[in-house]
């Protein structure tokens, strides 16, 4: 059974021009132990999906879905407290900008120790609990690769580096040994060496703890080095979904192809000093969404039929939604 199963998730935001579909029938499935990448440009709705899963929904948003289940339990209908329980013990989230995710006026040690739930230290007497918490905290820090725990437990967030902060948040997330870690662009704005450290840590946790990861990013290089599967999102619609290897080798959707082509590291045949291929135009705003396939106006292969939303089709476990996929060329 899938851990997280999302089918036809639609998220509407109420604005001055009525309800706008920020997410339109998004599908996403995360199996146990896999690293699923969620890719898309800025503004494509990646973070909205994360918020829909986490349940941080403001009043002027409306969510409808055929399925939004966590291990068979419907997240849309369960009570708030039950949902919070799931968020507390089974799903963990880490965000971009790790330093601003930490309380600036408390030491890292305080923050890590308070994340340790009471149940874990319940078998000790109350005067031993602090010591026990400290032991657990130190162990967790070692696990995420912070060896110099003495130095960092008493540090404040403004005194530490970005990657230490992100590792620290991962340590906080691991306290309750969750099954799914949602990483919302965890390496944004980091320099390459610190980024690699965080990514290595994530894939190592995936292997040693069988931790599923939903990796939200637009950094294709990072994704391709660690993810097993990938979902491509464009403007609130899932355009393609499949195994990382397959997607890279033979993308079926024109958008995925354009996305991969835009990253120079994926193109070995690229001659020096040649211009990079890009799609014309920019991602449309929520107020001016095209009907049908939202890629329509920018798509090099668009035809008359594209004003209708394409059905989700698949070749084995490779899903795509396009009227004119790149398959046909070969046939």
């Amino acid at each position, binding site marked *: 059974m899938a851990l997280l199963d999302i089918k036809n998730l639609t998220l509407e935001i109420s604005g001055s021009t009525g309800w706008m579909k920020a997410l339109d029938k998004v599908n996403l499935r995360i199996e146990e132990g896999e690293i699923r990448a969620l890719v898309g440009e800025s503004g494509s709705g990646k973070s909205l999906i994360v918020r829909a899963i986490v349940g941080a929904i403001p009043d002027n948003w409306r969510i409808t879905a055929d399925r939004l289940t966590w291990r068979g339990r419907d997240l849309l209908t369960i009570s708030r407290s039950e949902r919070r329980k799931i968020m507390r013990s089974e799903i963990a989230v880490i965000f971009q900008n790790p330093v601003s*995710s930490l*309380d600036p006026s408390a030491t890292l040690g305080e923050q890590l120790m*308070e*994340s340790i739930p009471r149940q874990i230290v319940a078998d000790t007497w109350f005067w031993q609990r602090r010591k026990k918490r400290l032991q657990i905290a130190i162990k967790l820090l070692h696990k995420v690769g912070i060896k110099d725990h003495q130095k960092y437990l008493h540090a404040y967030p403004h005194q530490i580096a970005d990657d230490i902060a992100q590792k620290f948040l991962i340590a906080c997330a691991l306290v309750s040994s969750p099954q799914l870690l949602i990483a919302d662009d965890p390496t944004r704005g980091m320099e390459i060496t610190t980024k690699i450290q965080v990514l290595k840590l994530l894939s190592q946790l995936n292997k040693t703890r069988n931790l599923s990861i939903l990796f939200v990013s637009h950094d294709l290089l990072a994704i391709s080095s660690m993810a097993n599967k990938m979902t491509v999102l464009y403007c609130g619609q899932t355009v393609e979904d499949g195994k990382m290897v397959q997607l890279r080798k033979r993308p079926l959707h024109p958008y995925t192809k354009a996305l991969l082509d835009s990253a120079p590291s994926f193109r070995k045949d690229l001659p020096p000093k040649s211009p990079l291929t890009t799609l014309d135009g920019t991602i449309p705003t929520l107020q001016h969404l095209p009907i049908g396939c939202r890629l329509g106006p920018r798509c090099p292969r668009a035809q008359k039929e594209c004003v209708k939303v394409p059905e989700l089709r698949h070749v084995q476990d490779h899903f795509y939604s396009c009227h004119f996929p790149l398959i046909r060329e070969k046939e």
Partner: protein
Amino acid sequence: MMLTQIIRKFNLLILTLFVLSILSFLLVYLFPGDPLVNLTGLENLSPEAHQKLAEIHGFDHSYFYQYWLYLTNLLEGEWGFSFSSGNPLWREIMQTLPASMELSAYALLFSLLIGVPFGFIAGFQHYKLSDYSLLTASVVGYSIPVFWLSLILILVFSLQLGWFPLSGRLSLLYDIPHQTGFIFIDIFLSDVEFKNDAAKSAVQHLILPTLSLTIVTASIIFRLTRRSVIDVMSSQYIQTAYTRGLSGLQVVMRHGVRNALLPIIPLFGMQFAVLLTNAMIVEVIFSWPGIGNWLIQAIFQRDYPAIRAGMLAVSTLVIILTVCTDLLANLINPALSGDRRAQI
């Protein structure tokens, strides 16, 4: 690190006071008329007497010498004499300043006790009915002129209802010798009978002036607190604290309150300056024997030495308090004290 902070703030304090002393020194020459007359209040002097006074005040020397003379006199507590009463200014200020400090301190205390809790309530409930009603009340409180409010309070509570006395600091029945200038301490130290009754009378006299000062300041503090709470509660670390599995109460108590208060503590110190200005107006209306009342009388009578000394005393007080709250805020805020990580 902590010591460096203290030394730096102390330097700032000394330098500001130095500039202030220069300004107050210059005031004598900037006032209209003969500086010597402004300084002593003696007019129609005979040439010999004029000559003698000029020697005493160093007028036959350079300005630097005069300033030096002025500064040494200031530090020795010889602030000159008032024209109108003929008393030494230092003694008059030491009698009036504590009364103003007392009034402002109580007003600030009550403003904090009212403004901060309501600010938190409104901040947590923001954009709901309770927030809007508190915000409306604060706009009203903020925009009422202090003198008008004091007059209304007098009209209602002392003239019509007769609950509180009209003016003054203590009923004339009690004769409390002046020791520190703070009325409750003086009552406690004195050996009159009916100490309790005297204290009760002092409280009754305090209520109306404190109230009229509190309403304005409490609204400002309320607005500062509310804004800060809203900002902090929508910040990312609060959101993350929820996903780290803390309950709502834990998040608020451990991360919300402290972070909301840290940035506004220096602002509270700044409010003291505004409060003191308002207190001067209130003192006049309630005939409160404070420095504001005294200073305004001095201005009416063109008592130049008194104006100079009074302004110096009030601004010194404000500067010392501002620097102290600033220092306190820096010392308790870990993001401002302690080492920072170098950033490119």
